[in-house]
Protein backbone atom coordinates (compact mmCIF):
# COMPACT_ATOMS: atom_id res chain seq x y z
CA UNK A 1 0.00 0.00 0.00
CA UNK A 2 1.81 3.09 -1.17
CA UNK A 3 -0.33 6.09 -1.85
CA UNK A 4 0.97 9.10 -3.72
CA UNK A 5 -1.04 12.24 -3.14
CA UNK A 6 1.01 14.35 -5.55
CA UNK A 7 -1.83 13.95 -8.09
CA UNK A 8 -4.10 15.88 -5.73
CA UNK A 9 -1.68 18.80 -5.43
CA UNK A 10 -1.21 18.89 -9.20
CA UNK A 11 -4.95 19.15 -9.82
CA UNK A 12 -5.95 21.03 -6.69
CA UNK A 13 -7.39 24.16 -8.36
CA UNK A 14 -9.21 21.99 -10.86
CA UNK A 15 -10.84 20.04 -8.04
CA UNK A 16 -11.83 23.25 -6.28
CA UNK A 17 -13.13 25.52 -9.06
CA UNK A 18 -12.79 23.65 -12.37
CA UNK A 19 -11.56 25.86 -15.24
CA UNK A 20 -12.84 29.04 -13.64
CA UNK A 21 -12.09 31.94 -14.34
CA UNK A 22 -10.92 30.90 -17.82
CA UNK A 23 -13.87 28.61 -18.31
CA UNK A 24 -17.07 27.54 -16.57
CA UNK A 25 -17.15 27.02 -12.83
CA UNK A 26 -16.64 23.38 -11.84
CA UNK A 27 -15.50 21.13 -9.02
CA UNK A 28 -16.30 22.04 -5.44
CA UNK A 29 -17.45 25.52 -6.49
CA UNK A 30 -20.12 24.08 -8.77
CA UNK A 31 -21.13 21.54 -6.10
CA UNK A 32 -21.72 24.41 -3.69
CA UNK A 33 -23.56 26.41 -6.32
CA UNK A 34 -25.89 23.50 -7.09
CA UNK A 35 -26.47 22.82 -3.40
CA UNK A 36 -27.15 26.44 -2.45
CA UNK A 37 -29.46 27.22 -5.37
CA UNK A 38 -31.41 23.97 -4.93
CA UNK A 39 -31.57 24.59 -1.19
CA UNK A 40 -33.10 28.05 -1.58
CA UNK A 41 -35.58 26.82 -4.18
CA UNK A 42 -36.57 23.76 -2.20
CA UNK A 43 -36.96 25.82 0.96
CA UNK A 44 -39.81 27.68 -0.74
CA UNK A 45 -40.99 24.52 -2.50
CA UNK A 46 -41.08 22.67 0.80
CA UNK A 47 -42.84 25.54 2.54
CA UNK A 48 -45.56 25.69 -0.11
CA UNK A 49 -46.01 21.91 -0.29
CA UNK A 50 -45.99 21.64 3.50
CA UNK A 51 -48.65 24.33 3.89
CA UNK A 52 -50.79 22.86 1.10
CA UNK A 53 -50.53 19.38 2.61
CA UNK A 54 -52.10 20.79 5.79
CA UNK A 55 -54.87 22.58 3.91
CA UNK A 56 -58.34 22.07 5.27
CA UNK A 57 -59.64 21.38 1.74
CA UNK A 58 -59.32 17.74 0.75
CA UNK A 59 -59.19 18.73 -2.95
CA UNK A 60 -55.87 20.42 -2.25
CA UNK A 61 -54.57 18.14 0.49
CA UNK A 62 -54.92 14.79 -1.29
CA UNK A 63 -53.18 15.54 -4.58
CA UNK A 64 -50.39 17.37 -2.76
CA UNK A 65 -49.83 14.45 -0.39
CA UNK A 66 -49.92 12.06 -3.31
CA UNK A 67 -47.25 14.10 -5.07
CA UNK A 68 -45.07 14.29 -1.93
CA UNK A 69 -45.33 10.57 -1.25
CA UNK A 70 -44.68 9.67 -4.87
CA UNK A 71 -41.47 11.67 -4.91
CA UNK A 72 -40.42 10.28 -1.55
CA UNK A 73 -40.97 6.76 -2.85
CA UNK A 74 -38.57 7.22 -5.75
CA UNK A 75 -34.78 7.17 -5.91
CA UNK A 76 -33.33 10.63 -6.58
CA UNK A 77 -31.69 9.20 -9.69
CA UNK A 78 -35.14 8.42 -11.09
CA UNK A 79 -36.34 11.98 -10.41
CA UNK A 80 -33.30 13.41 -12.19
CA UNK A 81 -33.89 11.15 -15.20
CA UNK A 82 -37.52 12.24 -15.31
CA UNK A 83 -36.44 15.88 -15.36
CA UNK A 84 -33.99 15.00 -18.08
CA UNK A 85 -36.89 13.77 -20.26
CA UNK A 86 -39.73 15.97 -19.13
CA UNK A 87 -38.16 19.42 -19.04
CA UNK A 88 -37.20 19.56 -22.74
CA UNK A 89 -40.58 18.06 -23.71
CA UNK A 90 -42.51 20.52 -21.57
CA UNK A 91 -40.48 23.59 -22.45
CA UNK A 92 -40.01 22.69 -26.09
CA UNK A 93 -36.27 23.38 -26.03
CA UNK A 94 -33.13 21.83 -24.66
CA UNK A 95 -32.36 22.59 -21.03
CA UNK A 96 -28.76 22.86 -19.77
CA UNK A 97 -27.72 19.86 -17.63
CA UNK A 98 -27.04 21.93 -14.55
CA UNK A 99 -30.57 23.35 -14.64
CA UNK A 100 -31.98 19.85 -15.08
CA UNK A 101 -30.12 18.76 -11.98
CA UNK A 102 -31.21 21.82 -9.99
CA UNK A 103 -34.82 21.12 -10.93
CA UNK A 104 -34.46 17.43 -10.01
CA UNK A 105 -32.82 18.23 -6.68
CA UNK A 106 -35.42 20.92 -5.96
CA UNK A 107 -38.42 18.69 -6.63
CA UNK A 108 -36.88 15.84 -4.66
CA UNK A 109 -35.75 17.92 -1.68
CA UNK A 110 -38.98 19.97 -1.57
CA UNK A 111 -40.89 16.76 -0.88
CA UNK A 112 -38.63 16.03 2.10
CA UNK A 113 -38.61 19.67 3.27
CA UNK A 114 -42.40 19.67 3.24
CA UNK A 115 -42.36 16.96 5.90
CA UNK A 116 -40.10 19.12 8.07
CA UNK A 117 -42.42 22.10 7.59
CA UNK A 118 -45.41 19.93 8.43
CA UNK A 119 -43.84 18.62 11.61
CA UNK A 120 -42.71 22.12 12.58
CA UNK A 121 -46.18 23.60 12.12
CA UNK A 122 -47.88 20.72 13.91
CA UNK A 123 -45.41 21.13 16.78
CA UNK A 124 -46.77 24.61 17.60
CA UNK A 125 -49.42 24.29 20.34
CA UNK A 126 -52.99 24.51 19.12
CA UNK A 127 -53.75 27.28 21.63
CA UNK A 128 -51.60 29.64 19.55
CA UNK A 129 -53.91 29.27 16.55
CA UNK A 130 -57.00 29.64 18.69
CA UNK A 131 -55.61 32.73 20.42
CA UNK A 132 -54.62 34.29 17.11
CA UNK A 133 -58.02 33.63 15.51
CA UNK A 134 -59.81 35.03 18.54
CA UNK A 135 -57.79 38.25 18.39
CA UNK A 136 -59.29 38.68 14.92
CA UNK A 137 -56.43 37.56 12.68
CA UNK A 138 -57.39 35.83 9.45
CA UNK A 139 -56.28 32.25 8.73
CA UNK A 140 -53.31 33.24 6.54
CA UNK A 141 -52.28 35.98 8.96
CA UNK A 142 -52.26 33.47 11.82
CA UNK A 143 -50.03 31.19 9.78
CA UNK A 144 -47.70 33.95 8.59
CA UNK A 145 -47.29 35.97 11.79
CA UNK A 146 -47.97 33.51 14.61
CA UNK A 147 -47.46 29.87 13.65
CA UNK A 148 -44.64 29.97 11.07
CA UNK A 149 -42.24 32.17 13.06
CA UNK A 150 -42.51 29.83 16.04
CA UNK A 151 -42.48 26.64 13.99
CA UNK A 152 -39.55 27.86 11.89
CA UNK A 153 -37.29 27.87 14.94
CA UNK A 154 -37.83 24.16 15.43
CA UNK A 155 -37.40 23.48 11.74
CA UNK A 156 -33.98 25.10 11.40
CA UNK A 157 -31.82 22.16 12.60
CA UNK A 158 -33.71 19.78 10.28
CA UNK A 159 -33.29 22.22 7.41
CA UNK A 160 -29.55 22.22 7.98
CA UNK A 161 -29.54 18.41 7.98
CA UNK A 162 -31.49 18.46 4.76
CA UNK A 163 -28.89 20.81 3.31
CA UNK A 164 -26.21 18.26 4.19
CA UNK A 165 -28.17 15.59 2.30
CA UNK A 166 -28.47 18.02 -0.56
CA UNK A 167 -24.70 18.54 -0.71
CA UNK A 168 -24.25 14.77 -0.86
CA UNK A 169 -27.02 14.45 -3.45
CA UNK A 170 -25.38 16.94 -5.81
CA UNK A 171 -22.90 14.14 -6.56
CA UNK A 172 -25.64 12.61 -8.73
CA UNK A 173 -25.22 15.51 -11.14
CA UNK A 174 -22.26 13.48 -12.35
CA UNK A 175 -24.66 11.14 -14.13
CA UNK A 176 -26.00 13.76 -16.52
CA UNK A 177 -22.52 15.15 -17.05
CA UNK A 178 -22.40 18.27 -14.88
CA UNK A 179 -18.76 18.88 -13.97
CA UNK A 180 -19.15 19.17 -10.21
CA UNK A 181 -16.74 17.66 -7.69
CA UNK A 182 -17.58 13.98 -8.33
CA UNK A 183 -17.43 14.43 -12.10
CA UNK A 184 -14.15 16.29 -11.87
CA UNK A 185 -12.84 13.45 -9.69
CA UNK A 186 -13.69 10.82 -12.29
CA UNK A 187 -12.26 13.04 -15.03
CA UNK A 188 -8.91 13.38 -13.29
CA UNK A 189 -9.06 9.66 -12.53
CA UNK A 190 -9.57 8.82 -16.21
CA UNK A 191 -6.78 11.16 -17.24
CA UNK A 192 -4.16 10.05 -14.71
CA UNK A 193 -5.19 6.37 -14.71
CA UNK A 194 -3.18 5.10 -11.74
CA UNK A 195 -4.35 7.08 -8.70
CA UNK A 196 -8.02 6.18 -8.17
CA UNK A 197 -7.53 5.42 -4.47
CA UNK A 198 -5.86 8.75 -3.74
CA UNK A 199 -8.40 10.73 -5.78
CA UNK A 200 -11.51 9.19 -4.27
CA UNK A 201 -10.13 9.38 -0.73
CA UNK A 202 -9.46 13.08 -1.33
CA UNK A 203 -12.91 13.73 -2.83
CA UNK A 204 -14.55 11.86 0.05
CA UNK A 205 -12.52 13.97 2.50
CA UNK A 206 -13.63 17.21 0.84
CA UNK A 207 -17.30 16.21 1.04
CA UNK A 208 -16.75 15.04 4.59
CA UNK A 209 -15.24 18.32 5.80
CA UNK A 210 -18.09 20.28 4.21
CA UNK A 211 -20.92 18.03 5.42
CA UNK A 212 -19.46 17.45 8.87
CA UNK A 213 -19.18 21.20 9.42
CA UNK A 214 -22.89 21.63 8.69
CA UNK A 215 -23.87 18.54 10.68
CA UNK A 216 -22.00 19.92 13.70
CA UNK A 217 -23.62 23.31 13.16
CA UNK A 218 -27.06 21.71 13.16
CA UNK A 219 -26.26 19.83 16.39
CA UNK A 220 -25.09 23.05 18.01
CA UNK A 221 -28.28 24.80 16.88
CA UNK A 222 -30.40 21.99 18.25
CA UNK A 223 -28.74 22.22 21.67
CA UNK A 224 -29.02 25.96 21.70
CA UNK A 225 -32.71 25.86 20.82
CA UNK A 226 -33.34 23.22 23.48
CA UNK A 227 -31.48 25.37 25.98
CA UNK A 228 -33.44 28.48 25.08
CA UNK A 229 -36.68 26.61 25.39
CA UNK A 230 -35.76 25.32 28.82
CA UNK A 231 -35.37 28.81 30.36
Amino acid at each position, binding site marked *: *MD*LDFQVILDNFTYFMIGRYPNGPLGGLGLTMYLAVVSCILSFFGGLILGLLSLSRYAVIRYPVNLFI*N*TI*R*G*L*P*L*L*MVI*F*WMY*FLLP*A*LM*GKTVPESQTVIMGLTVFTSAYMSQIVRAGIMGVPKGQTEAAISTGLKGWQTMLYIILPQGMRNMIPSFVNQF*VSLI*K*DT*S*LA*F*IVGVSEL*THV*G*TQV*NNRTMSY*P*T*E*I*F*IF*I*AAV*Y*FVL*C*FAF*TSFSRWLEQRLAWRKSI
Partner: protein
Amino acid sequence: MLKYHFDWSIITSGKYFEWLVSGLKITLELSAVGIVGAFVLGLVIAVLKMSNFKPLRWLASVYLEFFRNTPLLIQIFFWYFGSYKILPTAVNEWLNNTNFEFAAAAIALIIYTSAFIAEDIRSGILSIPKEQMEAARSAGFSFLRSMQYIILPQAVRITIPPLVNQFLNLAKNSSLAMTIGVMELTYQARQVESYSFKGFEAFTAATVVYLALSVSITFLMDLYNKKVLNPQRS
Protein backbone atom coordinates in the same frame (compact mmCIF):
# COMPACT_ATOMS: atom_id res chain seq x y z
CA MET B 1 -47.32 20.26 -27.19
CA LEU B 2 -46.24 16.65 -26.97
CA LYS B 3 -45.88 14.98 -30.32
CA TYR B 4 -44.96 11.68 -28.82
CA HIS B 5 -46.31 8.33 -29.81
CA PHE B 6 -46.80 6.18 -26.72
CA ASP B 7 -46.21 2.49 -27.21
CA TRP B 8 -46.70 0.61 -23.99
CA SER B 9 -46.56 -2.80 -25.65
CA ILE B 10 -42.77 -2.68 -25.90
CA ILE B 11 -42.34 -2.77 -22.13
CA THR B 12 -45.09 -5.25 -21.32
CA SER B 13 -43.68 -8.08 -23.38
CA GLY B 14 -40.70 -9.16 -25.44
CA LYS B 15 -37.03 -8.31 -25.14
CA TYR B 16 -37.38 -5.02 -23.26
CA PHE B 17 -39.78 -6.54 -20.77
CA GLU B 18 -37.22 -9.24 -20.03
CA TRP B 19 -34.52 -6.60 -19.55
CA LEU B 20 -36.64 -4.75 -17.03
CA VAL B 21 -37.50 -7.94 -15.17
CA SER B 22 -33.86 -8.99 -15.00
CA GLY B 23 -33.08 -5.47 -13.74
CA LEU B 24 -35.70 -5.79 -11.03
CA LYS B 25 -34.21 -9.13 -10.03
CA ILE B 26 -30.78 -7.58 -9.55
CA THR B 27 -32.24 -4.61 -7.66
CA LEU B 28 -33.93 -7.05 -5.29
CA GLU B 29 -30.79 -9.18 -4.94
CA LEU B 30 -28.62 -6.17 -4.25
CA SER B 31 -31.16 -4.83 -1.76
CA ALA B 32 -31.41 -8.17 0.04
CA VAL B 33 -27.64 -8.55 0.37
CA GLY B 34 -27.38 -4.91 1.41
CA ILE B 35 -30.12 -5.12 4.02
CA VAL B 36 -28.69 -8.19 5.73
CA GLY B 37 -25.15 -6.84 5.66
CA ALA B 38 -26.07 -3.32 6.73
CA PHE B 39 -28.18 -4.60 9.59
CA VAL B 40 -25.45 -6.85 11.01
CA LEU B 41 -22.75 -4.21 10.60
CA GLY B 42 -25.00 -1.48 11.97
CA LEU B 43 -25.73 -3.59 15.04
CA VAL B 44 -22.00 -4.11 15.66
CA ILE B 45 -21.24 -0.39 15.27
CA ALA B 46 -24.13 0.57 17.55
CA VAL B 47 -22.87 -1.75 20.27
CA LEU B 48 -19.30 -0.45 19.86
CA LYS B 49 -20.55 3.10 20.13
CA MET B 50 -22.15 2.29 23.47
CA SER B 51 -19.33 0.27 24.94
CA ASN B 52 -17.57 1.38 28.11
CA PHE B 53 -14.18 1.26 26.46
CA LYS B 54 -13.36 4.74 25.19
CA PRO B 55 -11.19 3.86 22.13
CA LEU B 56 -13.96 1.62 20.79
CA ARG B 57 -16.52 4.36 21.26
CA TRP B 58 -14.26 6.80 19.54
CA LEU B 59 -13.65 4.41 16.65
CA ALA B 60 -17.40 3.93 16.21
CA SER B 61 -17.98 7.70 16.21
CA VAL B 62 -15.36 8.25 13.53
CA TYR B 63 -16.93 5.50 11.44
CA LEU B 64 -20.42 6.96 11.85
CA GLU B 65 -19.43 10.53 11.09
CA PHE B 66 -17.25 9.67 8.15
CA PHE B 67 -19.62 7.39 6.31
CA ARG B 68 -22.72 9.47 7.02
CA ASN B 69 -21.11 12.64 5.75
CA THR B 70 -19.76 11.44 2.40
CA PRO B 71 -21.94 10.81 -0.66
CA LEU B 72 -22.83 7.21 -1.41
CA LEU B 73 -21.76 7.68 -5.02
CA ILE B 74 -18.21 8.53 -3.94
CA GLN B 75 -18.16 5.50 -1.68
CA ILE B 76 -19.27 3.32 -4.59
CA PHE B 77 -16.52 4.77 -6.79
CA PHE B 78 -13.99 4.29 -4.05
CA TRP B 79 -14.75 0.59 -3.65
CA TYR B 80 -15.01 0.03 -7.38
CA PHE B 81 -12.06 2.02 -8.68
CA GLY B 82 -9.81 2.66 -5.74
CA SER B 83 -10.04 -0.09 -3.17
CA TYR B 84 -7.48 -2.42 -4.77
CA LYS B 85 -4.58 -0.36 -3.45
CA ILE B 86 -5.53 -0.66 0.18
CA LEU B 87 -7.04 -4.16 0.29
CA PRO B 88 -4.92 -7.26 0.92
CA THR B 89 -4.05 -9.30 -2.20
CA ALA B 90 -6.18 -12.24 -1.10
CA VAL B 91 -9.29 -10.04 -0.86
CA ASN B 92 -8.57 -8.50 -4.26
CA GLU B 93 -8.25 -11.92 -5.84
CA TRP B 94 -11.49 -13.05 -4.29
CA LEU B 95 -13.27 -9.87 -5.47
CA ASN B 96 -11.96 -10.28 -9.01
CA ASN B 97 -13.31 -13.81 -9.16
CA THR B 98 -16.78 -12.75 -8.10
CA ASN B 99 -19.08 -10.29 -9.82
CA PHE B 100 -16.95 -7.29 -8.91
CA GLU B 101 -19.44 -4.55 -9.87
CA PHE B 102 -22.10 -6.18 -7.73
CA ALA B 103 -19.68 -6.74 -4.85
CA ALA B 104 -18.39 -3.14 -4.90
CA ALA B 105 -21.93 -1.74 -4.95
CA ALA B 106 -23.00 -4.11 -2.16
CA ILE B 107 -20.00 -3.19 0.02
CA ALA B 108 -20.64 0.53 -0.47
CA LEU B 109 -24.37 0.19 0.25
CA ILE B 110 -23.72 -1.94 3.33
CA ILE B 111 -21.17 0.42 4.82
CA TYR B 112 -23.10 3.61 3.99
CA THR B 113 -26.43 2.32 5.30
CA SER B 114 -24.91 0.64 8.36
CA ALA B 115 -23.87 4.08 9.62
CA PHE B 116 -27.50 5.25 9.52
CA ILE B 117 -28.81 1.99 10.93
CA ALA B 118 -26.34 2.11 13.81
CA GLU B 119 -27.73 5.50 14.88
CA ASP B 120 -31.31 4.21 14.69
CA ILE B 121 -30.43 1.11 16.71
CA ARG B 122 -28.56 3.24 19.23
CA SER B 123 -31.45 5.59 19.80
CA GLY B 124 -33.75 2.57 20.08
CA ILE B 125 -31.49 1.10 22.75
CA LEU B 126 -31.10 4.42 24.56
CA SER B 127 -34.88 4.68 24.77
CA ILE B 128 -34.86 1.60 27.05
CA PRO B 129 -34.62 2.87 30.65
CA LYS B 130 -31.09 2.42 31.96
CA GLU B 131 -32.37 0.67 35.08
CA GLN B 132 -32.96 -2.36 32.85
CA MET B 133 -29.25 -2.56 32.15
CA GLU B 134 -28.38 -1.96 35.79
CA ALA B 135 -30.74 -4.70 36.89
CA ALA B 136 -29.32 -7.10 34.32
CA ARG B 137 -25.75 -6.31 35.32
CA SER B 138 -26.50 -6.76 39.00
CA ALA B 139 -28.19 -10.06 38.24
CA GLY B 140 -24.79 -11.19 37.04
CA PHE B 141 -25.11 -10.84 33.25
CA SER B 142 -22.05 -9.56 31.42
CA PHE B 143 -22.44 -6.40 29.30
CA LEU B 144 -22.85 -8.40 26.10
CA ARG B 145 -25.24 -10.92 27.64
CA SER B 146 -27.39 -8.11 29.13
CA MET B 147 -27.55 -6.64 25.66
CA GLN B 148 -28.45 -9.97 24.12
CA TYR B 149 -31.12 -11.09 26.58
CA ILE B 150 -32.51 -7.92 28.14
CA ILE B 151 -31.96 -4.74 26.14
CA LEU B 152 -31.99 -5.77 22.47
CA PRO B 153 -35.23 -7.78 22.53
CA GLN B 154 -37.01 -4.71 23.88
CA ALA B 155 -35.22 -2.22 21.65
CA VAL B 156 -35.91 -4.20 18.49
CA ARG B 157 -39.64 -3.54 18.75
CA ILE B 158 -39.31 0.24 18.64
CA THR B 159 -36.39 0.21 16.23
CA ILE B 160 -38.21 -1.71 13.52
CA PRO B 161 -40.01 1.27 11.86
CA PRO B 162 -36.91 3.47 11.41
CA LEU B 163 -34.94 0.40 10.37
CA VAL B 164 -37.42 -0.53 7.69
CA ASN B 165 -37.26 3.05 6.50
CA GLN B 166 -33.49 2.66 6.13
CA PHE B 167 -33.99 -0.61 4.26
CA LEU B 168 -36.29 1.20 1.88
CA ASN B 169 -33.67 3.92 1.44
CA LEU B 170 -31.13 1.23 0.68
CA ALA B 171 -33.36 -0.27 -1.99
CA LYS B 172 -33.78 3.17 -3.57
CA ASN B 173 -30.08 3.95 -3.23
CA SER B 174 -29.21 0.70 -4.99
CA SER B 175 -30.13 2.57 -8.19
CA LEU B 176 -26.72 4.30 -7.91
CA ALA B 177 -25.09 0.96 -8.67
CA MET B 178 -25.89 1.62 -12.32
CA THR B 179 -22.98 4.09 -12.43
CA ILE B 180 -20.48 1.24 -12.16
CA GLY B 181 -22.40 -0.99 -14.55
CA VAL B 182 -24.53 -3.13 -12.26
CA MET B 183 -27.47 -4.00 -14.47
CA GLU B 184 -30.22 -3.21 -12.01
CA LEU B 185 -33.62 -1.66 -12.66
CA THR B 186 -32.57 1.93 -13.39
CA TYR B 187 -29.73 0.71 -15.59
CA GLN B 188 -32.11 -1.44 -17.62
CA ALA B 189 -34.66 1.36 -17.92
CA ARG B 190 -31.94 3.54 -19.37
CA GLN B 191 -30.82 0.69 -21.59
CA VAL B 192 -34.35 0.27 -22.97
CA GLU B 193 -34.49 4.02 -23.54
CA SER B 194 -31.28 4.12 -25.53
CA TYR B 195 -32.19 1.07 -27.65
CA SER B 196 -35.83 1.94 -28.36
CA PHE B 197 -36.02 5.72 -27.74
CA LYS B 198 -39.06 4.93 -25.61
CA GLY B 199 -37.82 6.75 -22.56
CA PHE B 200 -41.22 7.64 -21.13
CA GLU B 201 -42.42 4.05 -21.19
CA ALA B 202 -39.21 2.60 -19.80
CA PHE B 203 -38.95 5.12 -16.96
CA THR B 204 -42.65 4.86 -16.17
CA ALA B 205 -42.21 1.11 -15.76
CA ALA B 206 -39.24 1.56 -13.42
CA THR B 207 -41.06 4.31 -11.51
CA VAL B 208 -44.10 2.12 -10.99
CA VAL B 209 -41.93 -0.72 -9.69
CA TYR B 210 -40.09 1.52 -7.22
CA LEU B 211 -43.38 3.02 -6.07
CA ALA B 212 -44.99 -0.39 -5.66
CA LEU B 213 -42.03 -1.37 -3.50
CA SER B 214 -42.20 1.67 -1.25
CA VAL B 215 -46.00 1.85 -1.05
CA SER B 216 -46.28 -1.79 0.00
CA ILE B 217 -43.55 -1.42 2.62
CA THR B 218 -45.11 1.80 3.96
CA PHE B 219 -48.43 -0.02 4.17
CA LEU B 220 -46.88 -2.89 6.13
CA MET B 221 -45.26 -0.41 8.50
CA ASP B 222 -48.57 1.35 9.15
CA LEU B 223 -50.02 -2.04 9.95
CA TYR B 224 -47.10 -2.79 12.28
CA ASN B 225 -47.53 0.53 14.06
CA LYS B 226 -51.21 -0.15 14.57
CA LYS B 227 -51.02 -3.81 15.55
CA VAL B 228 -47.73 -4.08 17.41
CA LEU B 229 -46.73 -0.67 18.74
CA ASN B 230 -50.16 0.76 19.61
CA PRO B 231 -52.47 -2.26 19.78
CA GLN B 232 -54.82 -0.57 22.26
CA ARG B 233 -55.74 2.12 19.75
CA SER B 234 -57.19 -0.09 17.06
